[in-house]
C-alpha cells in the first residue's frame, strides 16, 4: 500500500501536499482501491471557498458515490479538468496525475495524519 512520505492524510482518505501556501489534494491509494473504477469526479468551481472538513466535491465509481472533504480550508485556485476525460487517473496515479484540486490555504487542517500515522490508522480500521 503506497503511502508517500511528505504528504499529510485525512481520516476520510484524502491526502494533501502544501507548497508555498498552495495545497494539492487527492485521494489515497487505499481510497481508490476501495472505490473501484472511478467514472466521474464532480469538481468545484475555481474561486469556491471551503473550510477544513467541508465537502468540496464528489467522486463516483461503478459501485458508489463518495463525498470529498477538504483537508484544509481555503479558496480553490485550480481543478484537474483532465479528470473529466480521464477519471481513471485517480485509480492509476492517485498521488500524481490523479490530483483533484489545488487550494490557496487560509485555514490549517485539523487531525491530519503523517504517513506513518495514516498507515497505522488503516491497520486499525481494517
Amino acid at each position: 500500500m503506497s503511502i508517500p512520505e511528505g504528504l499529510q492524510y485525512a481520516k476520510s482518505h484524502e491526502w494533501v501536499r502544501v507548497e508555498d501556501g498552495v495545497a494539492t489534494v487527492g485521494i489515497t491509494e487505499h481510497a481508490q482501491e476501495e472505490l473501484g473504477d472511478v467514472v466521474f469526479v464532480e469538481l468545484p468551481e475555481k474561486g469556491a471557498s471551503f473550510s477544513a472538513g467541508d465537502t468540496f466535491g464528489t467522486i463516483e465509481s461503478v459501485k458508489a458515490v463518495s463525498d470529498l472533504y477538504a483537508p484544509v480550508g481555503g479558496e480553490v485556485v485550480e481543478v484537474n479538468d483532465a479528470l473529466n476525460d480521464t477519471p481513471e487517473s485517480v485509480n492509476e496515479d492517485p498521488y500524481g496525475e490523479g490530483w483533484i484540486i489545488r487550494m490557496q490555504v487560509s485555514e490549517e487542517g485539523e487531525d491530519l495524519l503523517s504517513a506513518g500515522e495514516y498507515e497505522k490508522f488503516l491497520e486499525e480500521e481494517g
Partner: protein
Amino acid sequence: MARFTPHTDDDIREMLEAVGVEALDDLFDDVAPKFEGSLDLPPVSSEYEALKDVAELAGRNVTGLPIFLGAGAYDRITPSAVSSITSRGEFLTSYTPYQPEISQGHLQAIFEFQSVISELTGLEVSNASVYDGSNAVAESALMTARLTKRDPKVAVSAGLNARYREVIETYGVEVVELPFDGTTDYSGVPDDVSGVFVQSPNYFGAVEDVGAASEAAHAVGALAVAVCDPIALAVLEAPGKLGADIAVGETQPLGMPLVFGGPYAGYMATHQKNVRQLPGRIAGETVDQDGRLAYVLTLRAREQDIRRARANSNICTNQALTALAATVYAALLGPEGLREVAGLSVSKAHYLAEKLGEAGFALRYPDAPFLWEFAVELPDAKKANEALLEAGIVGGLDLGDGAMLVAVTEKRTREELDAFVEVVADAV
C-alpha cells in the same frame, strides 16, 4: 440448497430476547387490537358469480364511441401487436432490471425506447421514461434550474397544456406567463428565468416556433424546453435541431389506449453534456467480461437508490410497460407509418375545420397553423357536447369561454366527421 431458509424457533427466541419482548405478538402492541367479530359483508361469491357481477357493472360503460377529445391524450389506433407483446409474462410482471445478468431482454427494450425518443427529438440521450407528460414537464423545469444554477423559474404561455402547468407549480417552480394569441410571443422573456417552455403542437393544436423560443431562452442564459407530441415529431423538425436543450412530452399517442388517463409514459431527452442532470432511470449499452454486447442501468448516481440526498429527483423508476407499448408501436409503424398517422390526422382535422367553417363556426385562432387539434368558437359548447353524446359521439373539450377544443385523429371516418358537424349545427 433450499431457496428459502426460515428462522428456527431458537433463532426467534434469541431475537425476541435481544429486543426485550416475551412473544412475537408483543411487537405489535402499538398496533390497533385485532378485530374480533365479523365484518358486515355479503356472503362470499363463487368465481362465476363474481365475474357476472363485475360484467354487469362493466356493461354500464359506454365504449367504442368516436372521440373528439384531445388536450393531451389522443384516441389513436392501437395495433394488436402492441398488447400481444406487452401482455407477455416476461414484460407484464417483471420487476426492475437491477440485475442485468437476468434482465437483458427488459433492458434492451428500454434501450430501444430511449433510442426511439432520441431519434424523434434529435437529442443524444433520453431516459427510460417517467410517469407521464406532466411529470416530464415538471422534472425538466427543475432540471433547468440545476443546469443554469438559477432559482427554478420558468416562462410558459397558455400554449402549454394547462394541467402540465399546474404540475410545474405543484413542484414549487415559479411560473411567469408570456403573451399568447394562438401561438406564443417569445419577445419578452425575463432575464432571470432558468427555463423557457415551448409546446409544439401547443395546447390549442398549433405549431410553435421552437427555434425562436430557444433563441429567446439562450439570449437570457436560460434553457429551452420543447414539449412535443411524438406523432408530431414524425412531421415536424426535431426540437434538438432547432436549439432546444431539453425535449419532453407524453408518449400515450404512441400506441397506448386512453384508459381514463393512465398509466402513460412521459419522455425526457437532452444533450449528452446534460446527462448527469437528467432524472430517472437510464439504460446503457456496454460489453460484458467476455466482450459481448450487454445492457445495464447506468449513471445511477443521479438517482435516489445510490445517492438519496443529492439525487436529481424523487423518481428512481420508469413506466416500463407503457414505454414498451410506445416502443413496439413506433417500431411497428416506423418513420413512414408515423408520418402516415400524422398526415391522416392533419387532413381529417382540416376537413372538419373547413366543414365547421361552412356551417358558420369560426376558428378561435384562424391564423395559427394547426395540425390535428383546434379551438372552434361555439355559442354553447356544453349543449353541443350533450347533443353529441346523445348521438353517440364524444365531443371536444369545453374551454368554458365560448369555444371547444377539438382533436381529430387518423381513427376518425368521414361519416363521423360529417355527423359531428351536423349534430353541432343542429344543437347550437
